[in-house]
């Protein structure tokens, strides 16, 4: 793999430089689009975490959005609970009565993100005990059931605001710099997730989960403790999903069980579609898929208002039915040498007298 075009330094360095420059400067150059760019980072995190266990491990979950919403609520409770009584706060539904000093806010946000990530990971371990005996479509439907149930139950829980939801504490400072701050937070999360995953996929762990995807029984026969790997893999997904959920809750400013937190139809299905669009089981596929999907989504929301959901549903069907390999899979077929796959060249070398 090391000699492939996509892995060469002359390709990588400008690319990484461009991404870093974009992440820091784009919101400053185009302040009107800061929220959209921020959402783009969120969607990349969603796609990467889904691919970790849908694409690399072959366990197609439809309910990963559960951890997103769970993290969002955990963070909200921690952020508010540090200063006020949560039940009283939600009953007053914010209302601007309760104020947070900058120190209280940033401490709450930091602790909230941490708690969201850790508790999501723990909940993944506990849920994994229930669902990892399920295979294939049963796993997908079972996880979807968990996400829907979580939304319904949260909607009936008065202490966290039930169906009315919670108004989140505001980021201190003027709105523009607050947006930039959350955008940077998302961007750092994307970078750390990307670096972590590219390291993870090169380790024994990465090969083990690929083995589970390819043939779980054989992997078990080879001595891989499959349940442990599966649970750990899901916990990693859940950790990052919980953290991004915590940040997203602060971005939106108002969280609510069905439309914002446990949004099974929106982000819950988007994350799967983004991965399929970009290419399952690749490192860059989910990122490319997320970018393309986000642009398409924003365009349909702008130009097809009213019909945007129909267009998006049709897009899902088209991607799933006609474009299974995704963008990365398509490029791989067109230009295998970019990926270090050298079918033709090896054939050429095998012939006597053929020049390299």
């Amino acid at each position, binding site marked *: 793999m090391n000699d492939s075009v996509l892995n060469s330094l002359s390709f990588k360095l400008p690319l990484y430089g461009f991404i870093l420059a974009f992440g820091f400067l784009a919101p400053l150059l185009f302040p009107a689009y800061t929220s959209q760019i921020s959402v783009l980072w969120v969607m990349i995190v969603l796609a990467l975490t889904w691919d970790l266990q849908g694409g690399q491990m072959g366990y197609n979950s439809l309910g990963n959005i559960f951890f997103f919403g769970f993290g969002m609520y955990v963070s909200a409770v921690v952020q508010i609970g540090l200063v006020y009584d949560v039940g009283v706060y939600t009953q007053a539904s914010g209302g601007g009565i309760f104020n947070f000093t900058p120190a209280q806010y940033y401490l709450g946000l930091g602790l909230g993100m941490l708690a969201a990530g850790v508790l999501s990971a723990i909940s993944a371990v506990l849920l994994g005990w229930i669902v990892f005996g399920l295979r294939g479509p049963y796993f*997908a439907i079972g996880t979807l059931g968990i996400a829907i149930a979580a939304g319904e139950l949260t909607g*009936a829980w008065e202490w966290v605001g039930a169906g009315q939801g919670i108004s989140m504490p505001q980021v201190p400072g003027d709105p523009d710099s607050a947006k930039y701050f959350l955008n940077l937070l998302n961007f750092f999360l994307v970078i750390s997730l990307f670096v972590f995953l590219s390291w993870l996929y090169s380790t024994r762990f990465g090969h083990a989960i690929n083995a589970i995807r390819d043939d779980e029984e054989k992997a078990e026969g080879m001595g891989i403790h499959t349940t442990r790997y599966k649970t750990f893999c899901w916990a990693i997904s859940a950790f990052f999903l919980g953290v991004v959920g915590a940040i997203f809750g602060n971005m939106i400013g108002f969280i609510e069980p069905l439309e914002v937190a446990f949004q099974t139809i929106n982000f819950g299905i988007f994350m799967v579609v983004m991965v399929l669009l970009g290419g399952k089981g690749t490192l860059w596929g989910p990122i490319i898929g997320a970018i393309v999907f986000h642009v398409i989504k924003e365009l349909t929301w702008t130009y097809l208002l009213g019909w945007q959901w129909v267009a998006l549903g049709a897009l899902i069907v088209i991607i799933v039915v006609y474009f299974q390999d995704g963008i990365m899979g398509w490029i791989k077929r067109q230009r295998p040498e970019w990926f270090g796959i050298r079918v033709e060249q090896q054939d050429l070398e095998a012939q006597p007298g053929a020049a390299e």
Partner: protein
Amino acid sequence: MSQILGNLSILWQAPVFNLSLLIDGLMIGAVFALSAYGLALVWGVMNVKNLAQGDFVMIGGYIAWVMSLNGIHPLFGVPVAFVALWGFGWVIYVLIIRRVIDQDLFTSLLATFGLAIVIEQVLNILFTSDTQTADAGFDSFLLFDGLVTIPQVKLIGFILAAILALAVILFMKNSRMGQAIRATAQDERAARVMGIDTDKVYAFTFSLNAAICGAAGALISMIWVIQPFFGITYSIRAFVVVTAAGFGNLPGVIAAGLGMGVIEQFGGFILGAEFQQAIVVGLLLLVLIVRQVQQARLRQVVQ
């Protein structure tokens, strides 16, 4: 919590309410059993998980509702929905299902999920998101001094569902196409070797499933409410019923469908109507966990 206990004590003190809930549950469960049977058919024969099942039901419901608005009795909506959804199912088969049939199961699950989104959004644009009921204009039977009411329309719905189920069962047993469908379900390759056009069988099976769902939807619009976004709940109900009963087990599917209706009625009464969807999903998780425990025991025996 106190509300739940209060509801429980009502059931305890006035046993006649239990009877009323039971009858309601059985009548609605008959319709669940219909759509679940369609899913069992498609799942067993084609190995496709159709998540748009509930949205087919909703389309059928809106057909009957639109007819009742135009002065036609919604009972006529049942055959009309059957025929219309037959055609719709065939189109969906040609456009989508045929291309995912030999892919892995997750592909068909996701493709039909996308289809479900399209259908519910189109219904939402056409008919808004208000809940609707087609007014069939029937009276109710009153039993036990009016404590138990049986709306005639529910009874008619129950009978129609039974007739439809019986017709489908007889068709599968006796007709040539029914035989071909069963043969394809057993072994697709062997069926093709024997000269069965499996593509035609698949198209027929999927259309039949859509038609059954459409008829079930027309019944639902009379005895309950329809709304564009209720489809997914019906899909999950069908999935729960089939998972609990296992496909190819027709009496099981019917029993599980009726049981589902009864449990939902009791659960809705005890916990409150806002928990309806949570009850359905809770049942799904329960069934999956029970199945898993059973299989874990089996796995240990094998080892």
